[in-house]
């Protein structure tokens, strides 16, 4: 018997309309866990570097995490993996909600889609009955709307549905996959789904998920619940409000947006508006949110209430969470009322809330700069708000200039030329980032921005405080109950960290410390992404209930795989390296590992090189950021080394082939 996982994947060939239920190898679970880990293995094995994002050979994997469907609190994430049309690298965006547990209860760990359907279809998984159904009547329908129609036509109110909107159908490079209250929105995964002509995947399951050591597992779950209660009653002192508690940043709950509106950038990630927040705005925005928000809501089996049901007057109801609350508002220099209205439309279209507003602000900047002409925008409305609605439609319908903008700022700027590249200034690896511009380089953040292969800062940060507390005694106090550290040394790193003087950024934490800190934070995210655990109870907040000391026990008691801190760290390292390997094989190199040029005003090129060198060395990568043969073999990834040597990416002597400057462009 398999524990925690079902031991079966669904393989769906959309070209031929063939569906197979395939048993998986339990040895892969021990090596790569599940979710992201086994997704990376499948992508390595089956999607070579010659496969382009929109070719039928590209795979689109919907995976439940290893512990999804067990009683582990907050373990509900679906990990979607494919080759991104925007970065042309491995995308592994994730969504919470209710979909992954339902898939497990239906008897599958993953749905692997390949090929392309001729006409628009949707997949209906109901325990052992799986069918590809016509979706021509759903063409152009909103993502939330689609889910409701499918539930009704199947007469399955409990079916969980992941769907794309028009943006995905029209292959917008930053299209999302929406699932009611959650979405997998980074990396343009919705565009690949649209390219495969699959509108939705609906699932309903009524089978059991088994545990290897039930008593032990339940006592671990109860400890986690007790710790959550304790943490809720004891918010962390000395950090800003949104960092004090657990969960995603509680954007749907809070009204005080002074910090975001005055520290993040407005427009095309350009303007910082100090002094913006005042009583009048606070009152107006509070009224807007209170009038629109019907309920704070959760994902499957989680007490945190990070999302909300939002009903703007005159608009259909939708669900929202986190920072999308403000991205449209700030890109358009507008107010919250506008932000929540346009987000409704963008959610139905199925669009990423980070990239989309930035692309639109970028287009309007180009118009102002004379690089794009008024004739590129026929019928452009007067007000900024109307212009955003206008651009949203142009992009999603790929009309006129919208066709270029649908590829994101990097590719659009390249095509437009004439200096437009300067305006696509806030990307990493061609992907739009949070609108944040700061002064002094922070070595930890430099490294996380540079090497984070999810290409999104919130998906690598957490665990270690973002800044030192002003007083040493406060730092010592913080360390007193800091049980989550993998090693005592991290406490000392933090205690010695000062706001000013010798032990302050950019030279403290030292290169070695910075590498340790980044590796820890990264490891926790990678473990979450394999188990299907939401980062909001684990790798993202300070002092979370899940950590490197209880995770091995959860895996042992849940899945029946012998794990301790070391074997778990090794497994995480193994599939983290495999993600790197997929990207290396697609042409990614050291030169791509860098933050947006203007992210910090004060840069330190020499230090930055040392940080990259230090991190690569810790990982067993060479100067080009390529995992060495020795490191690969030590991790049980000899097959990757062989492939690298065959392709000339590594030579037998394990030195990098520095000639491989061929980018994936």
């Amino acid at each position, binding site marked *: 018997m398999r524990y925690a996982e079902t031991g079966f994947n669904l393989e769906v060939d959309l070209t031929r309309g063939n569906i197979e239920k395939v048993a998986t190898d339990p040895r892969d679970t021990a090596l790569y866990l599940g979710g992201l880990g086994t997704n990376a293995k499948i992508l390595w094995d089956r999607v070579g570097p010659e496969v382009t994002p929109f070719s039928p050979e590209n795979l689109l994997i919907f995976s439940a995490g290893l512990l999804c469907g067990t009683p582990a609190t907050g373990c509900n994430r679906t990990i979607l993996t494919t080759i991104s049309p925007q970065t042309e690298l491995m995308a592994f965006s994730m969504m919470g909600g209710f979909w992954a547990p339902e898939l497990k209860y239906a008897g599958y760990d993953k749905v692997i889609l390949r090929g392309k359907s001729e006409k628009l279809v949707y997949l209906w998984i109901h325990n052992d009955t799986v069918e590809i159904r016509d979706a021509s009547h759903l063409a152009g329908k909103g993502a939330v709307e689609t889910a409701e129609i499918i539930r009704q036509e199947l007469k399955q109110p409990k079916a969980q549905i992941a769907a794309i909107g028009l943006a995905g159908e029209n292959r917008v490079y930053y299209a999302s996959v929406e699932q009611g209250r959650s979405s997998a929105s980074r990396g343009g995964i919705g565009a690949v789904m649209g390219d495969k002509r699959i509108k939705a995947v609906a699932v309903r399951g*009524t089978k059991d998920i088994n545990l290897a050591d*039930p008593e032990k597992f339940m006592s671990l779950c109860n400890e986690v*619940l007790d710790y959550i209660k304790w943490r809720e009653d004891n918010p962390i002192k000395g950090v800003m409000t949104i960092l004090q508690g657990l969960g995603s940043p509680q954007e749907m709950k809070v009204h005080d947006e002074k910090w975001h509106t005055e520290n993040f950038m407005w427009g095309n990630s350009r303007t910082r508006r100090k002094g913006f927040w005042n009583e009048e705005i606070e009152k107006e925005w509070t009224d807007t949110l209170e009038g629109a928000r019907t309920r704070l809501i959760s*994902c499957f*089996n989680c007490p945190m209430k990070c999302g909300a*049901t939002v009903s703007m007057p005159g608009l259909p*109801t939708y669900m929202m969470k986190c920072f999308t609350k403000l991205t449209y508002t700030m890109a358009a220099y507008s107010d919250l009322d506008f932000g929540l209205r346009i987000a409704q439309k963008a959610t139905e279209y199925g669009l990423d809330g980070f990239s989309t507003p930035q692309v639109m602000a970028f287009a309007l900047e180009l118009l102002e700069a004379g690089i794009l002409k008024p004739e590129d925008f026929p019928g452009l409305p007067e007000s900024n708000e109307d212009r955003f609605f206008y651009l949203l439609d142009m992009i999603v319908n790929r009309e006129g200039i919208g066709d270029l903008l649908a590829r994101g700022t990097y590719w659009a700027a390249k095509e437009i030329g004439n200096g437009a590249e300067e305006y696509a200034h806030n990307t990493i690896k061609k992907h739009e980032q949070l609108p944040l511009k700061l002064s002094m380089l922070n070595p930890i953040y430099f490294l996380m921005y540079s090497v984070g292969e999810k290409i999104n800062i919130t998906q690598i940060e957490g665990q270690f405080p973002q800044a030192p507390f002003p007083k040493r005694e406060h730092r010592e106090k913080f360390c007193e109950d800091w049980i989550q550290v993998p090693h005592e040394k991290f406490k000392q790193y933090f205690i010695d960290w000062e706001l000013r003087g010798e032990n302050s950024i950019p030279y403290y934490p030292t290169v070695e410390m910075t590498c340790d800190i980044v590796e820890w934070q990264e490891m926790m995210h990678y473990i979450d992404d394999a188990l299907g655990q939401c980062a909001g109870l684990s790798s993202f907040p300070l002092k979370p209930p899940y950590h490197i000391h209880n995770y091995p026990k959860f895996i042992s008691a849940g899945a029946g795989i012998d794990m301790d801190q070391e074997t778990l760290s090794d497994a995480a390292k193994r599939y983290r390296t495999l993600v790197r390997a997929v990207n290396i094989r697609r042409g990614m190199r050291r030169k791509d590992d860098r933050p947006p040029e203007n992210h910090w005003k004060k840069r330190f090129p020499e230090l930055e090189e040392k940080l990259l060198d230090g991190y690569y060395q810790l990982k067993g990568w060479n100067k080009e950021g390529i995992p060495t043969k020795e490191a690969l073999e030590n991790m049980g990834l000899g097959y990757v080394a062989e492939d690298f040597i065959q392709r000339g990416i590594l030579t037998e002597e394990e030195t990098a082939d520095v000639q491989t400057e061929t980018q994936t462009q």
Partner: protein
Amino acid sequence: MAGKTKEKKIVKTIKIDVDKCNGCRACEVICSAFHASPKYSSNNPARSRIRIIREPLRDIYVPVYAGDYTMAECAGRDKYTIDGKEYDECSFCRASCPSREEFKEPDSGLPLKCDMCEGEDEPLCVKWCLVDALTLEEREEEVEEQEEREDLELGLESLADKFGMQTIMDTLARMSKDDKSK
């Protein structure tokens, strides 16, 4: 059923605050895990004895406990409007009934009934509901003594309703004969 007497009894009541429900279904998870055999060995919300009647876009979240089995669905099913939201009467009904899939074992179709997690300090759904949509209240009441009916009896009754008593008895007779001949 002779000799019914009135006696004082502590009645456990679960108070349900639908406004506090966040729709997470942790109650369904822990309920199905607790009632698995062996205890906690598996979980499956489709076997849970509590269900969240849940329609997020209409803001409907009603935790409902499995009550008695009924062989027929009721004649008129009314609609209630509460705070501007329309609910089916079924949204509050605890019956395991032919009109819906709630409160039946997914494979056998046998009825499920909440037992307040006998042997535990409090029902586990209450314990796992950190948002306090479910809380426990105990009160003293005078009740008529009733014989407790076993799961087996309830299950058999529903089978008899479905297939007819004669079929059930024939089947049992055949099964016990098969068993002896092994």
